[in-house]
Every structure is written in C-alpha cells, then in structure tokens.
C-alpha cells in the first residue's frame, strides 16, 4: 500500500512467515481464543435462551438485563471492564477483597497466565446475549402441542429437552457457532481495547498481530501475506464445516 514500486518477491513472504515460530504461536493463540469463546458463549447462550423461554415473574426484567451488554457500543463496555479489572482501583478486586476472597489484588489483565482467560470472559459476557436471542427465536417456533403430547406420554424435563428442544434448535446452534467462529477468528476490538496483545504476547492473536505489524511498524507486505493466510485458513475451515458438520447437523445442504 505504501511502497510506490514494490519488487516482485514470489512466495518469499509466505515462506518467511511460515518458518517463524512467532506466527505459529499466534495461530495457536487464535485457536485458543476462538475455541474458548465458542465453548462458553454457545452453552451459556442456549441456557439463557431456555430460561427466557419459560413463563415466570420478572421475565421481562431478566430479558432486558440479558440484552444490556449488546445495547452499548463495544468500546464503552470493553473500557468499562478494563477499569473494573484494574488491580489497584478496580471495583472487582475491591469486592473480592471485601468479601475476603483475596488478600492481594488479582492482576487480571497484566498477568500473562490469566490475561487470555480474562479477555475471553469479557467477550463471553458481550456475545452471549446475541446467541441467546437467536436461539430464543428458534425456541419460540417449536409448537407447544409437541411438549403437551410428550407430557401426556410421561416425558420428563430432560427427555423433553433431548428429544424435542435440542433437535429443533440444533440447526440454529450450528449455524450460530459457525458464524461466531468466523467472527471470533478475525475479532479485534475486545483484545485490542483490553490488552493490545500483551502482556508478553499472551493475547497476541492473528488479528492483533496484523494490525500491529501494519500500523505500528508499517510492514505492509507482511500484513498482506498474513491476511491471505488467514483467508486460506478460514476458507478451509468453512469447507470442512460444510462437508462434515453443516450438512449433517445444520441441515444447510437441504
């Protein structure tokens, strides 16, 4: 982008990057980031959707409260979390100290052994409502008489879930997981706003690395190569998904 007359280097950039341990470390962190987020967001989202689908007092309050993370701009909510997680003046450490759970402050974002976990939790908080609302939409399309018939036949709560609810929501869960996986693989704002890939590269996913290399040290050709590699990884994942998961479980090939 910034070089007027760049020399032709063939596949040199690809070879150089694929031979760097740094790149594979970033791929590993991206997979950990995507996997842990999916592993938390989807089950919690389904659970919340099931709760929202029941009739009880205070349901509308719970529904509004659940949607709250999704109502504010991501920059606002993420920075709010960052302030709350500060070891010295953050409210979370303060509460944990008050209730006697800790004696020394926890360095949520500055300790490299827990930084990724913290960022994943914050992101889970943000994205769970999205999954919950989509699944709730599917839950509300299940005819009530199926449940009534199952009750008459003596089915319990777990039987109803595994034999009626789950088969109905599974296609929606699968497509949600797939879309979310694509977003998560490229996701930039939460990690950037919380840690910028640190401390000590503990949260350096490919998306963060691409931004840093492009706009902090201006290695545009490296960034272009990394972006193409990312595109190839995601294309292969998409193909694998449609081949083995989407068709069988998600009814996408119907």
């Amino acid at each position: 982008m910034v070089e007027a007359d760049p020399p032709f280097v063939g596949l040199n950039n690809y070879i150089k990057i694929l031979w760097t341990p740094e790149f594979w470390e970033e791929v590993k962190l991206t997979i950990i980031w995507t996997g842990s987020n999916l592993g938390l967001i989807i089950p919690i989202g389904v659970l919340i959707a099931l709760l929202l689908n029941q009739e009880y007092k205070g349901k509308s309050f719970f529904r509004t409260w659940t949607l709250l993370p999704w109502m504010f701009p991501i920059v606002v909510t993420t920075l709010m979390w960052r302030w709350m997680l500060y070891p010295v003046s953050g409210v979370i450490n303060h509460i944990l100290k008050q209730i006697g759970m800790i004696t020394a402050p926890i360095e949520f974002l500055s300790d490299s052994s827990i930084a990724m976990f913290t960022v994943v939790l914050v992101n889970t908080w943000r994205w769970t409502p999205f999954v919950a609302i989509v699944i709730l939409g599917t839950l509300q399309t299940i005819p009530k008489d199926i449940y009534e018939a199952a009750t008459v036949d003596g089915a319990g709560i777990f039987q109803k879930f595994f034999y009626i609810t789950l088969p109905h929501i599974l296609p929606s869960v699968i497509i949600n997981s797939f879309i979310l996986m694509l977003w998560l693989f490229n996701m930039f704002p939460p990690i950037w706003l919380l840690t910028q890939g640190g401390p000590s590269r503990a949260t350096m996913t490919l998306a963060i690395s691409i931004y840093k290399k492009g706009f902090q040290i201006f290695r545009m050709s490296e960034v272009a190569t990394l972006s193409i590699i990312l595109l190839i990884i995601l294309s292969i994942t998409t193909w694998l998904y449609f081949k083995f998961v989407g068709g069988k479980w998600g009814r996408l090939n119907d």
Partner: protein
Amino acid sequence: MKMKKNYFLILVLIIAVIFTFSINVLAKETIEIWHWETPPHRITAQEALFSRFEKETGIEVKQVPINFPNYQSKIMAGIAANSLPDLLLINPPQLMDMIKHDAIIPVDDIFNSIHKKYEFPEALWTAYNYMGKQYGLPVYGVSWPLTYRADLYEEAGLEPPKTWDDLLEAAEKLTMDRDGDGETDIYGFCLPVSTIGNYGSQVVWGFLRTNDGKITDLSSGEQRIVFDSPETRETYEFLSKLAKYTVPGAGNMDWGMAELLIKSGKVATVMYNGAWLRELDEKDPELASKYKMTFMPIPEGGQRKNTGYPRGILITKRAEETGHLEAVRTFLEWLYKPENHTEYLMMEAGLFMPVTKATAESDTFNNYPIIKKYNDLMQVQAKTMEYISLIGFEGGGKSLEAGAIEGSFLLGAVLQKIVNENWSVEKAVEWGQSEYEKIVEY
C-alpha cells in the same frame, strides 16, 4: 416564436453565469486539519478558536479529530488514496514517514516568517528539520518530568530524587501501608512494564537517555542499531530493581491508568505530564497541590535528558495541489500570535507547553488562572522541554525508520521479558537489538 425561444435561452445562460459567479465569490475557502485531540473539551476549544479565525478572515478551518490509535493508519490510507487534509498534527518520529512517502512540503518560508516574529527554541524547531529543510512547525510541547507527592516525600524525610539511587531508595521507602491494615496503600513508583500504548516504552526511553543509551546511530552517515550497549544493560538492570516497588497491574499499564493512579493519590512517584492537573484541580485541589515535578533522576556520570515531544503541524502536498497554501499560511501566521496561541494551548491547560518564546513570555499565557496557580509545575515542564530526546533522532541524525522504531514499543517489550518472563538483562537486550535490526532492514 423562435425569437422568444432564443431570448429565453440567453436569459437562462445569463442567470447560470451570474449564479456560478456568485457561488464562486460567496463560497468560503475551507482548509482541513487532522488531529488526535479527541476529548470533547479539546474539540470544543479548537472549534471556538477556529470560528474566531473564520470571523476575522473568512477562511473556514475544518477539524477532523481522529483517535490516536487510528491516527497513523488513517494517514497511511490518506497517502494511498491521495486524500490527506491540508494540515496534519504530528509527532516528530512520524514526520519521517511523511518525508519517506513524499506526502508533505517544506515550509521554510512560513517557518522563517513566524520564527522571526515569535522565535521557536532551537531544540524544538530542529525536530522538524531534515537535511537542511524545515518540514513542520512545532505547535505545542508535552514533556514527562518526574511527578511526585511532595507531602509523602517530606513525611519520609526524603528529598526529591536527583539520582537513580535516590529514586530507588524513595520507591522502597514510600511503598507503604499507611493505615496498618496489612495492605499497601501507596506505591513508591509507577513503572509501566507494558506494551499497551507507548507509555512503557516512553518511560524506559527517559531512563535510557539519562544514561546515554541509544537505539540508532547515524553519526557515520550510515544507520546502525546500537541498542545492545553497556548503557542499555545498566538501565534495564536499574529498572528491574525499580519494578519491585511498582503498582500492581504494571504489565497492562497505559497513560490513562497511570493518570487514574495520580488522581487517586496512590502513587508517590511517576513519570508523567500535566494532563491530570486541570481535572484534579477542579475535583480535589488539595491533592493537586501535593504533587510537584522535577527533572528525571540521572545515574552517576549521566546526563540530563527527558522524554517529550514538540508536537508539530505539517503542510501536505495536497494543500499545494488544491490551491490552499495561501489560506494555510494565513491561518498559521494567525495561530502563532501569542493571544491565539495561548487559547490553542489552553485546550488542555497545564499539559500543552508553549513552543515560542513570545507565547511563553506573554501575559496572556502567564496570567491564565491554572498556569498562574501551578507556576512551579509549569516552569519544570517548560524547562524539561529543553532536554527532550526523541526516539530515532538521538544518534547524530534522524532515522527514516523513526516512526517504526518508536511504534514497535520494543523498549517496553524488553522490560517485559526481564520482569515478567525472567529473562536475563543480557538476553533481553540482545533480543531487542535483533528486533530493531529487523525493523530497519525491512
């Protein structure tokens, strides 16, 4: 009938010509400036200043505030798309990227005219001079002296630290549990062991320069990376000792977090500018008055140096292409008049320092309430501007890769390797050397 039709066409033509002519006459000239002063009060202050300029001259100045983390990427995209504004606010290391990409024009004539009237100190204007040509005008200064809680120092019987040893002693003594509940209430020093933003690297840079450590050396005419040196190793040895007394959360520390610590009175010593002053003076003037500033402590045989920037204004090639040069010149000549310049600096009173002798000595600036009230802090900040050292500009020339060298935040990354990952100083500095070499070789 045909005659009537012709009259009608002529009439339409005349109206069209008159209309176009009046539009051209009435259309005001607009110049655009990009900057990263995004806090609302800074935008409002600039809006007021630029409106006054428009009333006086008829030239509109359109400001485009861009968040600092996105600023460089917008500029790069602007270069690629030939859509840069007429004027750009910039830090000196990024000036080199502008020169490298042939995106700006020399401003020698404008500079000479303003310099003659208002006088820029040499240490500041030379930051924008490259190969004998002036590429920008310093517009305000920001420096990061040592900021300390004078009341705590006094209580502990300590003098403001002058040497590295003094600072280490103070950091140890002032990390304390004041209310006896078994928890540390005050931390002796705030050392950002981080790469989130440039805070970590800028603090290391301040210490490194007081020990004459360098990253680049251009004295022979050829650029060499000289980061791995005894001076650098000594500096990191010292910082690793100092890190024992820093606040928890140092691994994710940025400017904002450090400012929050100052405002809550939790740190005894910190390398910081006057950004906290205006707000703390409004909310807790008593705490504000407890903070004092001094020069960066130096090691034995060291030199007085300081982290800071003379931020500057550049004129882009686009201004020349769009015929806005004269309007830009009128604006800059107007902006540097001490009364206007003071108003510009007061968009963040207590933080932005004058860069011309005329403004620094003017009554308008010196009688401004907060400047008058905290005159001692202002004096130190202004004085430290004379000792500022810029990354990539330190070794007898200006590195064309200064922007990338600075933007890599490697100084902070090396400290992280030592403090967080328990690397030896030798190994970490060696790693830093090879990373810098990769940057300049790229």
